[in-house]
């Protein structure tokens, strides 16, 4: 996935300024930066969620498998079926069971209907991938809001994984979780690179250092620096990056 001269606006606010980036396949890319630097907005441009907000608009290109997702012949609905997203706070569907939550994305997929057994198999696999299966296998029919916040977030990850996306976007997925749940999600992110491209927004630099292969540093809507995570955290080339990762601001 790549962005080319990407600009994003909220009304008159210029939230993402001229960002051109490569997100290498089967790697984890972390986007770091202080609050309000446009990192979440950048992420939301990658599956065309940004435009669902009133007065929001996007300029420039985002290439997904070589195709510009903002060209008029691209259906954002079809795109989102290949580019999964997990939000800052867990968003399980409260009226659905745990199983139905994981299967929710399957029900809106086009094509032939899966029978019950196929759905059950996919649900099991997604929950195992999200390291949640052992904790919920005995209450798949139970309410999705009856589990802890950390479990709910892994449920949302399982829900995104069930449709086998090519790219997974994580928007501060551990911001509302306790340290133990955070660790589980991080381990999961580390595993996921084997099967997909992962882009994670985080304001936690230790997290970026732990889980990512590449890191992007953003400031005031601009991409300041991008490098392999090891290089970024040892020898940053931009003084602003150094100032941020050494904790002098942000």
């Amino acid at each position, binding site marked *: 996935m790549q962005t080319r001269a990407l600009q994003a606006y909220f009304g008159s606010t210029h939230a993402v300024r001229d960002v051109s980036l490569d997100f290498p396949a089967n790697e984890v890319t972390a986007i770091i930066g202080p609050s309000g630097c446009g990192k979440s907005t950048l992420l939301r441009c990658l599956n065309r969620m940004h435009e*669902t907000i009133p007065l929001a608009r996007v300029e420039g290109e985002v290439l997904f498998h070589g195709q510009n997702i903002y060209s008029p012949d691209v259906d954002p*609905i079809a795109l*989102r079926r290949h580019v999964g997203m997990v*939000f800052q706070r867990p*968003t399980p*569907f*409260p*009226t659905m069971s745990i199983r139905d939550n994981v299967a929710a994305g399957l029900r809106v*997929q086009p094509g032939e209907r899966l029978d019950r057994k196929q759905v059950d198999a996919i649900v099991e696999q997604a929950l195992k991938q999200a390291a949640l299966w052992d904790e919920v296998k005995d209450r798949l029919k139970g309410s999705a809001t009856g589990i802890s916040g950390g479990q709910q977030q892994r449920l949302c990850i399982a829900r995104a994984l069930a*449709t086998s996306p090519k790219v997974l976007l994580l928007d501060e997925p551990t911001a509302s979780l306790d340290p133990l749940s955070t660790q589980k999600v991080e381990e999961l992110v580390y595993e996921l690179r084997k099967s997909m491209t992962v882009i994670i927004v985080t304001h936690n630099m230790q997290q970026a250092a732990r889980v990512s292969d590449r890191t992007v540093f953003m400031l005031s809507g601009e991409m300041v620096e991008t490098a392999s995570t090891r290089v970024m955290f040892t020898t940053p080339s931009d003084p602003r990056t150094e100032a941020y990762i050494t904790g002098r601001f942000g």
Partner: protein
Amino acid sequence: MQTPSLPATVTTPESRTLPTLATPLAGSPAAPPSRVSIEGTVVADRVYRAAIFGFALCVPILLLLIFVEVGVAGWPALRQFGFGFLTSSTWDPVAGQFGAAPAIAGTIITSIIALVIATPLALGGAIFLSDFAPSWVRQPLAFLIDLLAAVPSVVYGLWGVFFLLPLLREDVMPFLRDTLHLGATPFFRGPAYGPSVLAAGLILSIMVLPYIAAVSREVLMAVPRSQREAALALGATRWETITGAVIPFARSGIIGGVILGLGRALGETMAVTMVIGNRHELSASLFAPGYTMASLIANEFSEATNDVHLSALMAVGFVLLLITLVVNGIARWLVWQTGGSRS
């Protein structure tokens, strides 16, 4: 040269006197006043709590009193006619025979018609207002819908008499019966007078629509944006997002709105009385004139001269109260059943 002077003051021997400040504080008599102020708050809080508990208690007490009063007044008629009061369709004040079956059936049928017509319209309008309408349309349209609820029911009745009834008589009823051949079913049979159960149901549907629409709009707009985004991010279309995530989330609130509308439909008196035809007759056809409990009480109360007649009307009121309570109970139970997994 400012920076060295600051630590100097901290490390001077004089500063060591600071800890001794704690000694006079511990033995000082300043503690008791703060205790008094704590006690004062508790008393005020108790008074406040008792007062609002009293206010809250007024509501169920009032309901209970109404129930008892109406029940006691209707008891002679209920005892005299027994179960037949609910099943008989003879209402003859001259002969002293009272059976409220047509009015009970009329109340329930007109309310069902009203809800069947109004619910999809109101819900559709609420979805449009919460999820599709641009903001410059949303406010005026929402205001107009709210305004519908403020129209006095006698005005709806007048509109019914001078517009709806002729329309039904000349166009709608012949169309349903003959053109659509619905006359083959027992529900759309017979002459098209105009005043009918159908007319009452239609006018009620307009009257309950703003209640259902306003409540539904509020609960739909209260659904967090994160729920909509979660569905959209999974690749759901706008429509799938609404049917799959937004409406299920708002379901118990929407049912609450429908209950509110139902309560209005069951008890509505004036407009219904003006268009239903006021006839004690049990007919399967919606074209036939009928009666509702509320319109029966309103029509006959001033003419009820003997005790049995009066008691019979009270008994009708008692049954109406009972039906309203039972229906509300069932609806609450439904909300609890369907929305229970959320809490």
